[in-house]
């Protein structure tokens, strides 16, 4: 491929290079440079995505002939209580994956960044660690901790709270919160690391200014910490809500959607429909709705952040 710079080829005709565009303006040749990435993206992300939208209008197992069914798969998601509950569970998981970790993170960040704590770097790493561990490993560990005869129940019995002991992951009331709290444990480190980094950029004089302006701790938080962490909060929200919505590994390993359908989530259903019961069309429709939900929630978050600035 010959990529002669533009001014040289132009130089043959004119004495001085043409000033048709401002310096730094995009040139058409730039597209050539992003072509490899575009090809990879189109081949491995965009084409399968379009194909899956296409498949979502069919019914079949993907091997024999597929039958066109229109929007029936989508109607099913809206009407079938199991499919619908998967999305409701996903929304509930957002509380555990994003809202609780970010709320605790904000509280700790606003306290921590002003006090000199010995070994802050150690705690930061320790709290961030769960986010680094493979979700499957985390799920295995917590499944063990929460098992009917696992460490948590043994501990409760040892301290005389045996009445509280319950088969956490087998209980219809507790299964989803239990899985959710594992998400809280994982995401909290991420939220805190992000928010602490952001809080360190806030000049301490701003807090002093609030105090001299007659404000207390709540005013400091509202007038300085919260606005100062706006971008970090948005990033944390986007990352954690996405993780909550597309959650698969932890559910798969810990509960497989059970007991009953108490912890069924969209990603798990996609997997189940596609590979367990071979309903390719239904799985594709589910996946499409999930993607739209993720994009929608993220748009909402960024829109709200822009509105409040």
């Amino acid at each position, binding site marked *: 491929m010959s990529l002669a710079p533009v001014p040289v080829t132009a130089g043959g005709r004119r004495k001085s290079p043409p000033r048709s565009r401002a310096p730094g303006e995009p040139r058409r040749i730039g597209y050539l440079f992003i072509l490899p990435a575009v090809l990879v993206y189109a081949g491995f992300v965009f084409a399968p995505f379009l194909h899956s939208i296409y498949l979502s209008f069919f019914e079949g197992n993907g091997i024999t002939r597929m039958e066109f069914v229109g929007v029936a798969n989508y109607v099913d998601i809206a009407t079938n209580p199991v499919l619908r509950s998967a999305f409701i569970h996903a929304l509930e998981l957002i509380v555990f994956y994003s809202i609780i970790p970010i709320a605790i993170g904000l509280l700790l960040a606003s306290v921590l960044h002003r006090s000199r704590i010995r070994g802050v770097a150690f705690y930061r790493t320790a709290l961030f660690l769960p986010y680094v561990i493979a979700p499957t490993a985390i799920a295995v560990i917590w499944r063990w901790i929460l098992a009917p005869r696992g460490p948590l129940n043994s501990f409760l019995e040892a301290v005389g709270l045996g009445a509280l002991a319950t088969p956490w992951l087998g209980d219809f009331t507790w299964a989803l919160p239990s899985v959710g709290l594992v998400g809280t444990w994982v995401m909290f480190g991420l939220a805190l690391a992000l928010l602490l980094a952001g809080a360190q950029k806030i*000049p301490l*004089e*701003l807090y*002093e*200014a609030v*105090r*001299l*302006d*007659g*404000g*207390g701790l709540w*005013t400091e938080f509202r*007038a*300085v910490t919260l*606005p*100062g962490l*706006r971008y970090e909060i948005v990033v944390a929200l986007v990352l954690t809500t996405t993780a909550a919505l597309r959650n698969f590994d932890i559910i798969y390993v810990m509960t497989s959607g059970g007991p009953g359908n108490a912890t069924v989530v969209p990603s798990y259903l996609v997997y189940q429909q596609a590979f367990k019961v071979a309903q390719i069309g239904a799985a594709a429709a589910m996946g499409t709705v999930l993607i739209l939900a993720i994009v929608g929630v993220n748009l909402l978050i960024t829109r709200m952040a822009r509105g409040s*600035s």
Partner: protein
Amino acid sequence: MSERVVFDGVSVTYPGMSAPALREVSLEVPEGELLVLVGPSGCGKSTFLRALAGLEGVSAGRILIGDRDVTRVPAKDRDVAMVFQNYALYPQMTVAQNMGFALKVAKVPKDEIKTRVGAAARLLDLEPYLDRKPGALSGGQRQRVAMGRAIVREPQAFLMDEPLSNLDAKLRVQTRAQIATLQRRLGTTMVYVTHDQVEAMTLGDRVAILKDGEIQQVDSPAAVYDRPVNAFVASFIGSPSMNLAEVDVVDAGVSLAGTTIPVDREVLAKVTSGRALLGVRPEDLDVVGSGVAITVELVEMLGADTYIYGRLSEGPLLVARVDPSIRPALGSVVHVMPSRTYLFAAEGDQSLLG
């Protein structure tokens, strides 16, 4: 309401530091006065201001604002306003919101906030910028917003922490004059911290010079210039700073590089060890036919004045501020003679005059 500020034996020691940042400082700033605290970095002047604001705890002594003992009162209840070196404006708020924030916290009615912010904005030429955010303002405008935020409060005292140090030289001179005018018009007690002795001399009703956490002298700008209590104050106030040289006491004077400089007998009588520190301001050194010989090393021509830097045959570099018509060649020898001298004790630097 403007109130006096009193420091009564105040000491501040930072955690983990052995030496206190402020050492038993006692000082009264009468109501309506503009006091400038000046000193080299690390002298404790910012600590003084932060202790007064309530941002720094006091380890000993009392702080009074008016007749109210505020030593243990938290910053938010002290009713003082501070202008920070980097202004500390709330970045997400508009200029109007920044200026009115303290009133909003104090639950002042919206209409009154608007009136008071409007009045302050008029005073500071900020009216066109009320709806802008600090990020869209120039350094000088931000500085005025910070001032506005303090004025709107109508506090008992203004605290200024090097408010001009982030401005360029020209703007600094302008704003300096503006602050002085404003303070006189409002009549509010102001404690102003700076490391710049020119600001101290031009702004202050009185100037307090600090060193190592201790007040060296508190007096009017003219008095600290004319009657410095020790060699530190003498060399800190005035530009270029005072020439200081260790000298031997001889009959009827002191000997500087072999030349006898006459000194009053009364003053000489106070010298105990036979040696003293002679101080001569550059503006008091005249070029004469015969006197102290110096070898010219540098000549700075400033237009109205010329500074001659010359070295004694033995000892330090001397600076003389002379008439611009005098232009000695580099390396030439000129003779200078002081028209006025200061004498300090060789031990302890205390002034031996007056």
